[in-house]
């Protein structure tokens, strides 16, 4: 009898508690991963800055911008969309944010009357777009947690192939920028054709011909640029992937922290409810016992036949205060 309700609540508390343990563990794991991911992003920075410097120098040295990756299409027939998100969920709004931004780009392409080519990194985006019947050009999985340069190269090479072959005329890159531990922002960047280099190259030719123009190139500015641009594209994608990984872990940490807090709150609420239910049950039980005893007393027909006389009979407890002070009882009876 002792509370079917109480038993149910007890079971729910146990289940909330084990959920809390899981989310807490996930939170801690994400916390260490986010530190690692940030460290990797920092380690990758020197290469990115250096390669940009070299390109700037090349532009200043008058490298001609006729590389296929710099081709500015007259008309955009097909837009490539690279969406970088996670393989796993439970990361708050992380995946949804990227998916929403990608859909916006899709709509934008459609409005311009262009076709689209989806290049998806991460299982979640892939699931979403496949389920909705979108045409997926390429999809990659298993690189969202801790992307390597090899991963970035695989994706970047495929995208460059599509672009140079004229499969796509423009490529947009969507990823989550890691601004700080507290802020991550979904960002859309023009990936191809390279716009910055082009502007840099033209800006370089108007340069006043200062110290930078004295650069010596082997074999030639164009030759270096030819082999440098693909590396530059790879490095950019790699940087985006590292940012996305750090953002994913930071988002997951936050989401799991919220889940842990909620579980704690729910546990407290359920415990209170359970206690009041249990108290109610105990009160009811006492009432039943008292009621039963009084009914028994009524049966005997004697008004002086109190429960105490049964609990503390005079022949067993001669020293009991009730027995020693008959006035006390008389007074009450």
């Amino acid at each position, binding site marked *: 009898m002792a509370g079917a309700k109480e038993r149910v609540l007890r079971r729910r508390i146990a289940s909330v508690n084990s959920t809390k343990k899981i989310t807490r563990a996930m939170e801690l794991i994400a916390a260490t991963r986010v530190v690692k991911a940030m460290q990797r992003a920092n380690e990758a920075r020197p*290469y990115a800055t250096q*390669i940009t410097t070299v390109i700037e120098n090349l532009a200043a*040295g008058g490298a001609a911008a006729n590389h296929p990756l710099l081709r500015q299409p007259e008309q955009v027939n097909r837009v490539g969309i690279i969406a970088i998100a996670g393989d796993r969920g439970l990361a708050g709004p992380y995946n949804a944010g990227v998916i929403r931004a990608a859909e916006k780009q899709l709509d934008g392409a459609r409005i311009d009357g262009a076709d689209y080519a989806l290049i998806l990194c991460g299982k979640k985006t892939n699931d979403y777009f496949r389920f909705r019947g979108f045409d997926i050009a390429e999809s990659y999985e298993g690189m969202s947690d801790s992307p390597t340069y090899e991963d970035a190269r695989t994706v970047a090479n495929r995208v460059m192939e599509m672009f140079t072959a004229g499969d796509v005329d423009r490529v947009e890159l969507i990823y989550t920028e890691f601004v700080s531990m507290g802020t991550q922002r979904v960002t859309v960047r023009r990936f191809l054709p390279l716009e910055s280099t082009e502007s840099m190259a033209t800006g370089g030719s108007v340069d006043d011909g200062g110290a930078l123009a004295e*650069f010596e190139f*082997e074999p030639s500015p164009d030759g270096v640029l030819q082999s440098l641009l693909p590396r530059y594209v790879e490095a950019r994608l790699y940087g985006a992937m590292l940012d996305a990984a750090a953002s994913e872990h930071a988002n997951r940490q936050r989401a799991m922290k919220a889940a842990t807090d909620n579980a704690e709150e729910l546990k407290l609420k359920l415990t209170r409810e359970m206690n009041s239910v249990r108290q109610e049950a105990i009160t009811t039980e006492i009432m039943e016992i008292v009621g039963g005893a009084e009914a028994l007393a009524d049966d005997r027909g004697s008004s002086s036949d109190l429960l105490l006389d049964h609990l503390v009979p005079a022949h067993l407890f001669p020293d009991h205060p009730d027995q020693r002070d008959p006035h006390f009882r008389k007074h009450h009876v």
Partner: protein
Amino acid sequence: MPLQVELVSPERLLYEGESTEVLARTVEGEIGFLPGHIPFVGILLPGVVQVYTGDGIQKIAVHSGFIELANDHLTLLSDVAELAGDIDVDRARAALERAEQSLAADADDADAQAAKARAEARLSASGTAD
């Protein structure tokens, strides 16, 4: 003033130090850098870059990449690079043998040629080339 040398791979900074002289191989041939060299950008060939430091020579096996020098600041940008101390000699030997075997079968195999150049660069950097 000595040269400031940095070896940077996409994933991290591999080496940083001062040097009096750096020897490298670009597509145009061998080139040496002394402090005060004019600004330079070149494409590296698979091979060994020798960095003369005060204590000796730091050899680096590079498989592809770029070299940039400006204001006595020399940067090696490389997708794949290994410091002499980090090279697995046995693996490099095995790779060289494999590459030679496939070259014996097909002399025009570009992959095998590249693999052979890489393995030779590794062995020569580690100082164990024949």
